[in-house]
């Protein structure tokens, strides 16, 4: 683990929170202690030598933190183990928080510094949020999605499963693939098939309608289809009904269809968890880049008028 060695997620999250708080209060207390001994004034002023030194340290840390970006682009070059980079990235990021607070004199200053500081705090917060998510969500994913796949391929695999389901329906009902409306029944769009399958009559038309309207869209698009099959209970209920109506020979195929629904439900969870696992980066990365730009502007401006 990058922070804490405990196998308990709660302990690791608490470690992150307490480490951040502890380091922040510790460093601030240390600076306060220095002020007590007369080494610098309190609250430190940003333009004082101590304040500028803190700013320089933070600037160096931020540049190091941003160096992780080119390091990713050059990952084929083996510039050290990534875990080491990540550990330094996280720890230095946490350490930079109290130093920035000291550098700012616990105030926001002019609009530029205020924006820079606000962005900095947002970057730190998003980073910590992301790190906490990374402790918590992988374990949830492990428990909730036993049949995991690559999140980016969920829709592709879902379409593949929809094709399989369509073939199963064709074999069960005898309808041509994609032409379930040939079956006639209570549903006006479903005529009786010319070559009936294992399931016939009203049940066939029900099954066909179910597949066309609910099952296949759900397998293709998951939750986005707004299908009632999103709920496991609903899936179980509907397939239990079909099993009651259909002959014994159709049960294995129906079980397979139910399994496909279950897989899709798991993968919806996977997509959702994956989103929460990585969405923090959408905030963290652009804010970091913007903050670094503003920090450089602030540094140039401050040094010019110092």
């Amino acid at each position, binding site marked *: 683990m990058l922070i804490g060695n405990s196998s308990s997620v709660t302990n690791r999250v608490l470690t992150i929170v307490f480490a951040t708080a502890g380091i922040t209060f510790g460093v601030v207390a240390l600076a306060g202690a220095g002020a007590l001994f007369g080494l610098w004034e309190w609250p430190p002023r940003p333009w004082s030598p101590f304040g500028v030194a803190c700013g320089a340290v933070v600037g160096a840390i931020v540049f190091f933190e941003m160096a992780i970006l080119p390091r990713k682009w050059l990952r084929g070059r*083996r510039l050290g183990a990534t875990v080491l980079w990540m550990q330094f990235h996280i720890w230095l990021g946490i350490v930079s928080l109290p130093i920035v607070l000291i550098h700012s004199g616990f105030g926001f200053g002019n609009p530029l510094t205020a924006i820079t500081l606000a962005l900095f705090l947002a970057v730190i917060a998003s980073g910590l949020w992301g790190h906490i998510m990374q402790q918590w969500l992988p374990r949830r994913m492990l428990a909730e999605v036993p049949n995991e796949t690559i999140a980016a391929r969920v829709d592709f695999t879902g379409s593949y499963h929809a094709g399989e389901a369509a073939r199963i329906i064709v074999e069960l009902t005898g309808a041509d693939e994609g032409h379930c409306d040939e079956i006639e029944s209570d549903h006006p769009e479903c005529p009786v098939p010319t070559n009936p399958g294992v399931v016939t009559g009203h049940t066939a038309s029900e099954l066909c309608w179910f597949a066309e309207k609910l099952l296949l869209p759900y397998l293709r698009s998951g939750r986005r289809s707004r299908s009632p099959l999103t709920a496991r209970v609903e899936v179980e209920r509907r397939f239990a009904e079909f099993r009651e109506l259909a002959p014994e020979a159709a049960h294995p195929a129906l079980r397979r269809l139910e399994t496909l629904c279950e897989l899709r439900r798991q993968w919806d969870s996977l997509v959702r968890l994956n989103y929460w696992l990585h969405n923090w980066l959408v905030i963290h990365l652009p804010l970091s880049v913007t903050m670094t730009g503003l920090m450089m502007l602030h540094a140039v401006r401050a040094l010019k008028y110092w």
Partner: protein
Amino acid sequence: MSERTDALTGSATGREVESLFARDDDDHLVRRERETRARFREMVTVVIDGFPIEVPRAVPKTDAQGNPVRDTGGELVPRTTTIYDAAVALVNAHVWSESDLKHRIPVLCHQAHLSPVGMCRMCSVHISSVKRGKLTPGRRLVPSCQHRVERGMVVTTRAGLDGYNPATWKAADVEAVERFAAEVNSSIRVVAELLAADHLLPDSGTVKRYESELTRVARVAGVTAPRAWFARPAEAESRNRLHEADPRSRRIPLPLAPTPAAPEELEDRGACRAWEDWNRTVDERFPYSSRSVVVDHDKCILCDRCVRSCNEVKPFQVLGHTGKGYETRISFDLDSVMGDSSCVQCAECMVSCPTGALSLRRRVQPRAWPDSPTAIPQNPNTPFPTESGFLTADEMRDVWLAYHSPKHGPRVVFPFRSIPYAYLKWNEGAVRKREVVAGEKLVLYREGEYGSTAFLLQGTGLFHFYVGGSRSGDRPSFFGRLFGRKPSGGEGEFGRHVATRPGNQLVMGEMGCLTHQRRESTVVFEADPRVPALELVSAGSGWPVARVAAGGPPRAVVYEVTRNMLDMMQRTASFREHLDEVYTKRAVESSVRYGELCADLPAETREELAAFLLAGGRLEFRRVPAGQTIVAEGEPARDYYIIRLGTVRLFRTVSGRERVLSMRSRGQSFGAIGLLADDLRRWGALPRTSRNERVATVAALDPVEVVRVPGDVFHEMCRRFPAVHQALLEDAARRLSETAAGGPAGVLSEYARQGLFQGQKLLALDLNSCTRCDECTKACADSHDGHSRLLREGLRFGDFLVATSCRSCHKPYCMDGCPVDAIHRREGKLGVVIEDHCIGCGLCEKNCPYGSIQMVPRDPARSLPLLGEVPPLVASVGPRRAVNCDLCEGETPACVSACPHFAAFRIDGPALLDEVLARKQRAECV
């Protein structure tokens, strides 16, 4: 499986069996009855040219390497014994010599490792049957390669009275034999004459690239020049023209584009031009050719060998037939140009072609060893480099080895004579000669290395074996070097000297080469002053013998050969037998010496124990195919087994379900509990009511080699070596107590099912901490030309995802059968490396059970032509190559190094199992 189920009949498959155009299940247009295993035991006596020979009516079907083929139930697949098989049995019984056989029954379309089809009828013989004591002559000639043997069958070959058995001469009907032989001779001569008239054309190349079997067979049949009116009309159109059945749907006949220059020729403009010229010549005349093989339909006799090779030896099924009548020819896919078809250019068809209709266009450039020259020219017309001791095809043909067989005594073996010339030419650079003279020493191989080469010994020299030495890469530490310590020199660096063997052992290093395991010792060789050199002289039988050459300094010669060459040699039954003899003996020895039985014993006791077990040849070596049961639960305990290679699982069947108790692999043993049951009962480890029987079933998880120690030898060993007895008892009691405690059966079953026991470097992702960021995949792609060698998907084991990436298996299936030895391990590293001379046949991809090898297009930069632009046709049919995880060639693998969350590990199977079990235990405690 019962005999009923395999005795398939035509009605069972809905096919006609007895009609004229009946086809078998493989769709061969041959009227043939399906064989049964019951006929393995039915013996018939056949008389060929007066020589009686008893053969079974069916024999086990074998693959190209001589391994028995088994059905899905693990049973041997039967094959009908043919007249030709009976004739071969006469050769094996040393009644005839091989040249005798070739003279009596010349064959053209038949090869031992292919299904017989009786296409060319060169092997025709006359058959008669004895009915009520009277000889009844048959009405027609039959192809001996395909016709089954029958009880009372009397066969007359073309040799007739000249080759008749002198012992039965008097009883023979001389007139009838002469008449039958004349019929056979006449038939064969006409066939040979017709084939020669139409297809025996001069070679188009400037150097010899193949040997024409048609020429040899025609010579045997006495055909020097075909009759004038048999000759092909001068105005007859070549079959090499591109056929345009429907111009709208067929390709416009384009000559093949200039072949890209070989990289080694780029600097030499003259060689480049010669290369281009040569390619252009071939392209214009043989438009069906590919970049590797020249296709000349005019030479094709439609013997079907290439088609069968593509379908039976290799699994590609690209070759078939097209056209009809005189226009019939072989075709790639639906009559595509070979280079544009789905052909992977493995050259198996070229190797099997008897007439040069499919011939070599470029060498393969094998580089099995690091000190190979930078390049072996691809153009077979380019002179071959001689500086590294590599042999040309002609030189390989002349290689001979003096071997002292434990069974048959001294004999001379020509290992490359049975290999088709085209294959030798294709693989020039795969064999090199290594020679030492008096006073010199040469290290053949080092302990711990993964060798992909074996060493054929010419017959002289002394070979010293060392174990426990420093590894080849060992150097003094930084401080050692600072204080002037040098790498240890002399014999000390090789370790402890354990044996010296003479050079008449046929082969060395074959165990590492064939089983893909580390070398077990370091071998250094030097010239033997007692046998300075050998020379060949002709013996009275016509077969050469080796004798000590007079004069000259002592020298020893060894030929280093790559694995694919060794595989090819094994297609010959005689060499296979010799190799098996050597291999079996050494396998038994190494199992005993390096197994766990001897592991903890003092050196002296170990030697005594090994000597006791190896004395008298009482131990039996067995190969067990994957899935087969070795011992069954409940059967009486008779033997003790030492595992030489592979992994077995021990399981009990409880309520119809298997409960895996443990797994045992190389060096370990099983079977002691049943044999030591009396002692274990006294110890209280077994219930008093138990019997001396197997407590578990043992089945092979992958191809396993075991050494069987008979029960009486085992008990004698226990009596003579009390320390071994005690150790065996303690081990047995411990295992029984573990079993009684109830292990994690589900985990073990899953471990076995997923094949994790194979892994030496599994890529395991801890899903508790993996954030699915895919950095591992991206890092792999970035470090390997954009082709990731891993897929972050696979089966879960505990909290781990075992990603689809090379596992560095104990038994690397991927290396089996590579036709150019492009895939192997180097030195002592575990990574499986695919060399640049991979021909992209895809066999390794197919063999890998874990889907870790991918086929990708070759680097486009390699396909750039030397002159002009790449025509779109050629550019679109870019060659492929196999890529695989090479564990980053010894560095920390990029996938592991790139993981930002301590989630990716390279770990071996047992360590992963331990980790999963430990976590399971922790979770249960919580």
